[in-house]
């Protein structure tokens, strides 16, 4: 079944269905080929994977240009897959403005990360395996954004979860990496339960899983009331897990145990974006339920606050970025909560570039110093100029400084929040001060001051593949710096697409027009305030961490309770581990199950044995070993049978 919808201006996209499937299949083929044939030929595995994702990237660009040419029309290609009773499942792809943007973001960032990984992962014994997992992950992510129905989306959604588990636990021989992988998998699974429940709910109530039909149901008011709210909240539960929203954000910082390019790809640009994408995709549903919308907005705000405050106290550069990601994802949810569908997607778009840049920059720093601990860095500005300048631009962009990409998207979120919900605006504005503060704290600690020597290479450690001398850091090779430079271009210019609201119109064409709200006009007042807030944050960081006008230890003493709270991550990990994992599961549920096992299951087994023992204890007396007694028994038996026969058949 083929459905084509033209945008208000223009025609339906004419892109061939084969191109769309090829976007998904290219990395999948690379995954299969690497796994089956070239896993032990590292260089070739890398090239194959880069080639495949390169083809996907080119095809994604073609798709984007095509949809741009159609002013954001929609094309849906759907095929019957199989039928099980009343359940009819379809396999289809859908291309529209939202999907096209996501495709280009995912494939371009993936491509750069893949190129960069050649330098970062050089010499790792799992090099081939790394590229196989990366290809699988990219397949899953591309499939997720192209899926035209919830069931297929769910399959790819779980594939994303699986491949992120594999990649986070890539160095599985490290106990910390193995447990981080398990944590990520289990925590996101909690959210996925909500998504699955939403899918079952919509199927049992309305017998459809197609995205466009669900949109229509929501807009026509057929899908309404409690069902609508529950459906929306179920979807949101999935997004909370995948996009690391409070209170399920705890997996993301730990996920930094994976290789840094994985962090860049999964935890900055793509995987965590899946949750925001899901919310954006089903925005007409969320928007139709005020309750769901409120929950989305305030959970987003809580995430913004939690992420930003925790980023302040991290000493690990990657963890600063991880909490920053959590906080930025919170901004996107917050934007959705104030009707800012296009704005949320726009922030996702710009964030992908500057956050991938920052992660890859931190990887480059790690490559020179053998550590992520900022207390062991400093002064890298002069020895790693490319890394420094690109990192600085990424930081400025994230802080929302004019005219970089982050300024445009963050400013619009603040504007939407100001117009629709002053409470959310307050949270977002304060957090944007903290954002600038923690990011420049990281920059000053890493790149300014004097070099603290990095982490000495442990030659005893067989897992360490560090080449070079941490005491004399150097700039990384071109395979690592070129992706940084390209991403820098994105971090600077990605926001300019929205200067005349072209981006917004393009993305908005992907959902029915009835679900849209008029975006507020650009406000100089908001723009200037948000810029001033960001500059104030940078100034504060400069005063504390560069000039040392105020000692950070002094501040810590003044606000000791808060500092302790932050350093322990609001005790959330302890709550989950001690209260839920230990008390509820280990001591409660597991005990209950154990009790059932030892009494009911073991009881049944032992009971059968007991009956056998007891009955044989009686029956053994019949076995005397006297053969004549047995003979007498047989004779008696025959006699009894004969009597019975005579009684039954009288002569």
């Amino acid at each position: 079944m083929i459905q084509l919808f033209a945008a208000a201006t223009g025609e339906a996209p004419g892109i061939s269905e084969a191109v769309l499937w090829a976007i998904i299949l290219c990395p999948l083929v690379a995954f299969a080929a690497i796994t089956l044939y070239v896993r032990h030929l590292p260089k070739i595995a890398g090239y194959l994977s880069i080639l495949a994702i390169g083809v996907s990237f080119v095809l994604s660009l073609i798709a984007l240009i095509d949809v741009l040419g159609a002013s954001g029309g929609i094309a849906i290609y759907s095929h019957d897959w199989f039928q099980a009773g009343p359940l009819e499942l379809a396999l289809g792809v859908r291309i529209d403005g939202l999907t096209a943007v996501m495709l280009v973001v995912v494939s371009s960032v993936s491509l750069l990360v893949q190129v960069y990984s050649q330098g970062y992962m050089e010499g790792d014994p799992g090099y081939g395996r790394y590229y196989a997992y990366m290809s699988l992950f990219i397949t899953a992510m591309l499939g997720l954004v192209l899926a035209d129905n919830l069931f297929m989306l769910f399959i790819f959604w779980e594939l994303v979860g699986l491949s992120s588990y594999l990649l986070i636990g890539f160095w599985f021989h490290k106990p910390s990496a193995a447990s981080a992988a398990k944590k990520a998998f289990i925590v996101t699974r909690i959210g996925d339960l909500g998504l699955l429940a939403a899918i079952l709910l919509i199927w049992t109530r309305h017998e459809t899983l197609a995205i466009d039909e669900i949109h229509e149901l929501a807009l026509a008011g057929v899908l309404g009331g409690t069902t609508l709210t529950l459906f929306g909240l179920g979807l949101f539960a999935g997004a909370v897990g995948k996009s690391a929203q409070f209170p399920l954000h705890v997996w993301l910082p730990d996920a930094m145990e994976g290789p840094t390019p994985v962090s860049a790809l999964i935890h900055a640009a793509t995987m965590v974006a899946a949750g925001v994408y899901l919310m954006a995709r089903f925005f007409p549903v969320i928007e139709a339920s005020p309750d769901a919308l409120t929950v989305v907005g305030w959970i987003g705000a809580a995430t913004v606050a939690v992420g930003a405050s925790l980023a302040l106290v991290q000493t690990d550069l990657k963890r600063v970025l991880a909490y920053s990601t959590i906080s930025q994802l919170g901004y996107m949810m917050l934007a959705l909560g104030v009707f800012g569908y296009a704005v949320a997607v726009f922030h996702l778009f710009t964030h992908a570039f500057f956050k991938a840049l920052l992660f890859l920059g931190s990887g480059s720093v790690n490559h020179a110093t053998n550590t992520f601990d900022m207390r062991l860095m400093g002064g890298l500005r002069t020895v790693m100029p490319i890394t420094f300048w690109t990192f600085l631009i990424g930081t400025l962009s994230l802080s929302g400084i004019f005219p970089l990409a982050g300024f445009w998207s963050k400013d619009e979120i603040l504007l939407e929040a100001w117009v629709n919900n002053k409470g959310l605006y307050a949270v977002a504005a304060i957090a944007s001060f903290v954002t600038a503060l923690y990011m420049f704290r990281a920059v000053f600690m890493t790149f300014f001051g004097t070099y603290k020597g990095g982490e000495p290479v442990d030659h005893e450690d067989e897992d360490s593949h560090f080449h070079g001398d941490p005491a004399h850091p150097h700039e990384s090779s071109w395979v690592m710096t070129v992706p940084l430079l390209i991403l820098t271009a994105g971090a600077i210019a990605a926001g300019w697409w929205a200067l005349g609201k072209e981006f917004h119109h393009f993305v908005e064409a992907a959902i029915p027009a009835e679900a849209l709200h008029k975006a507020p006009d650009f406000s100089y007042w908001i723009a200037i305030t948000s810029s001033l807030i960001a500059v104030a944050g940078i100034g504060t960081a400069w005063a504390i961490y560069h000039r040392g006008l105020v000692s950070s230890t002094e501040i810590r003493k003044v606000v000791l309770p808060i500092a302790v709270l932050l350093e322990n991550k609001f005790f959330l990990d302890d709550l989950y581990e001690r209260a839920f994992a230990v008390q509820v599961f280990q001591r409660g549920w597991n005990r209950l199950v154990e009790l059932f096992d030892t009494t009911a299951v073991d009881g049944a087994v032992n009971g059968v044995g007991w009956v056998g023992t007891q009955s044989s204890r009686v029956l053994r007396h019949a076995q005397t070993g006297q053969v004549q007694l047995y003979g007498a028994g047989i004779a008696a038996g025959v006699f009894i049978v004969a009597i019975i026969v005579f009684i039954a058949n009288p002569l």
Partner: protein
Amino acid sequence: MLTLEHFLTVGALLFCLGLVIALSKRNAIGVLMGIELMLNSVNLTLIAFSRFSDGPAEIAGHAFVAFIITVAAAEAAVALALAVAVYRSRQTVEVDQLDLLKL
């Protein structure tokens, strides 16, 4: 005039005697003799049925008897050999003492 019942009565009496001997004698040889007696009582019964009937049943009776005599001879040979072998290893053929499987 001898009728079928006379033969059957004698056969049944012989069978019961044989059974009592087989179940009560302690000596294995005696038990075997009891079994032989039971077999022969059955032979007598069969030959009596054969004598008092016509047609194919007549020859069937003879065939059964010839067959049983053969089997009984073979059985006696095996059983006596077993008795000798048991006596050699246990110095006894008292069946109530041959209860090794029970131990």
